[in-house]
């Protein structure tokens, strides 16, 4: 099934597949999912949470007997990636919350991923062990040393099958390079380097070297009183290992070429849309702050998410986006209230589908939105336990902005702003999506005919 091809002739019908997480109403803060990411093949799905844990799900092999039930995701490995730390110099606690997970392309039997909290990036190796050696000469089966005097013959140890064990081991720890909070990590297409970005700086790392990194972007002013802008997200180009972009709290995107200079404080391209005078308000800057930036798989476009919209930019046109999608424009009249309760600072992410024809992002009330770039149609869906019957087709939702509310519509004033979909992921080649709703992970698939 090639996503996007079908979209020319029919809309995708999304069905509930699975939900992971507790059904209890009281949510432990540590269980709140803070990042979701498929690996490059879609076989694995990783989540990170506020408690510093990483849970990896693996897609089961598809069964010939159950063709209508595409492979489900089951827990493959769980490990504690980051622990709470204490910075003694500043007397500050460093949160263990996993801000981002990024997979490395698979090059052997093991899987590798990067996980980061506010300060430290770690490279984890996840590998399987399904055999164990038996028949040692100097040790018995329990591992105790044997008396050499009792050994009369020599034997060759053999590997015997054992129950599958999945091990996660930290292979690298990249620490002490960020003064401010890390918001992004991105693996370079050379598979040798990656970058980590905090509020004011971006560092380039080599996977093999943990005690040094190269600073490639630094927007910290000499006088902090001149600080008016911070870095909000950063990503490498999917194919050109010299190119990356970073977004800012002022709604700008800068594309940099590392070949131009070692310190990329001068951008190669600068993307910014002029402010609409009719929408100008005290909150214009806050809602223009970009919370996520993603290259398309083709590398030709970038997508940005600000508080009310998703925008698609062509790398060859800097003065305005080529497409703008309204996520929840009905909130524009409520910005003051949203500023008061800090919801206006929520950082929503956005994702492309495998063919770059559909984009997805989250909203409030556990709603998430999809926009088909070709048909220009959009849909609002909800991640909720009520719609969690196996293979149940998700019913589109609609928010009533005024006038008479229809039966299945929800009014703006009834939206639950504590239920926010900040993190979503799309399978790299199939119509399978993962949606994080607080402490639950929903997996939806398109209906298989």
């Amino acid at each position: 099934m090639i996503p996007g091809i079908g979209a020319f002739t029919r809309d995708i019908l999304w069905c509930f597949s699975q939900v992971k997480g507790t059904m209890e109403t009281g949510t432990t803060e540590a269980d709140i999912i803070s990042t979701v990411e498929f690996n490059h093949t879609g076989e694995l799905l990783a989540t990170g949470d506020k408690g510093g844990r990483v849970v990896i799900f693996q897609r089961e092999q598809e069964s010939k007997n159950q063709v209508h039930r595409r492979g489900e995701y089951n827990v493959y490995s769980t490990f504690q990636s980051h622990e709470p730390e204490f910075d003694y110099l500043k007397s500050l606690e460093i949160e263990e919350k996993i801000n981002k997970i990024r997979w490395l392309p698979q090059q052997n039997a093991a899987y590798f991923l990067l996980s980061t909290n506010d300060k430290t990036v770690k490279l984890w190796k996840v590998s399987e062990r399904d055999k164990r050696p038996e028949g040692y000469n100097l040790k018995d089966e329990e591992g105790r040393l044997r008396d050499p005097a009792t050994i009369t013959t020599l034997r060759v140890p053999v590997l015997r099958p054992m129950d599958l064990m999945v091990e996660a081991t930290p292979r690298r720890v990249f620490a002490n390079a960020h003064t401010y909070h890390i918001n992004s990590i991105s693996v370079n297409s050379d598979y040798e380097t990656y970058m980590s970005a905090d509020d004011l700086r971006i560092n380039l790392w080599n996977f093999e070297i943990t005690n040094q990194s190269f600073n490639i972007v630094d927007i910290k002013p000499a006088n902090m009183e001149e600080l008016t802008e911070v870095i909000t997200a950063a990503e490498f180009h999917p194919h050109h290992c010299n190119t990356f972009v970073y977004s800012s709290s002022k709604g700008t995107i800068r594309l940099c070429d590392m070949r131009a200079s070692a310190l990329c404080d001068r951008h190669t391209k600068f993307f910014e849309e002029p402010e609409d005078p009719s929408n100008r308000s005290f909150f214009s800057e806050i809602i223009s702050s970009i919370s996520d930036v993603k290259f398309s798989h083709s590398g030709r476009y970038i997508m940005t998410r600000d508080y009310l919209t998703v925008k698609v930019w062509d790398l060859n046109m800097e003065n305005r986006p080529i497409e703008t999608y309204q996520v929840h424009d009905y909130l524009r009249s409520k910005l003051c209230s949203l500023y008061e309760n800090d919801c206006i600072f929520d950082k929503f992410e956005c994702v492309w589908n495998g063919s770059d024809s559909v984009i997805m992002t989250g909203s409030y009330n556990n709603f998430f939105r999809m926009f088909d770039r070709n048909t220009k149609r959009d849909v609002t869906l909800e991640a909720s336990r009520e719609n969690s019957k196996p293979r149940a087709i998700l019913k589109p939702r609609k928010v009533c902005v005024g006038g008479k509310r229809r039966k299945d519509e929800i009014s703006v004033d009834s939206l639950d702003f504590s239920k926010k979909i900040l993190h979503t992921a799309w399978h790299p080649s199939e119509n399978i999506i993962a949606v994080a709703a607080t402490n639950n992970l929903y997996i939806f698939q398109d209906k298989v005919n």
Partner: protein
Amino acid sequence: MLSKGLKRKQEEEEEGKEALAVDTWWLGPGHPAVAHAPPAVASRSLFDLSVLKLHHSLQQSEPDLQHLVLVVNTLRRIQACMAPTAALPPMPSLPTAPGIADNLLASSDASLSASMASLLEDLSHIEGLSQAPQPLVDEGPPGHPTGGAPPSLGALDLLGPATGCLLVDGLEGLFEDTDTSMYDSELWAPASEGHKSSPEDGPGKEEAPELDEAELDYLMDVLVGTQALERPPGPGC
């Protein structure tokens, strides 16, 4: 478990549970409904709310820099729009920590700008404390605040009757009773951070004054002890 500082996200989740009601009083300027409310009053309310947010943000154990910058920028924008000398009607007291609202309302806007700038500057000095020495860079102990004050102000501890307003004429007077002798020693110049390929000596660097040996030894012990604690166990390669 380590005690945690105030978590902005936890509070925002709790507050967000309330359904948002349409309230024209709080609508931003430019919206047609604001025409029914005096713009100066609406701006003043936003201004006070923003100042409270700024204060609350700085009370966090480690302020969210993006949140801080956006709030400060919004404050500046509101300030620029507000009439500088117009007499404002009496404001209702905001439901905040007792004592703060009156003090904030009494502060002058001009000094607020200077205070916001000072607070951001103080953040810079405090952030410099966490810089561990990096190889390939001029070796030097991390920077430290040179006479600056920690941004995490104790809630009401500094609002004694003698201090009056929180944000008036800079912050020096508020910290008279805080012993900053260790930080005032200026032993460490702010170190260049990261590995800048174009190394530069910023204009803000200061020369280290003299210290007696006992203080130097104590500071080095703290630094060495901190590094030993922060160094993670080496992973198997």
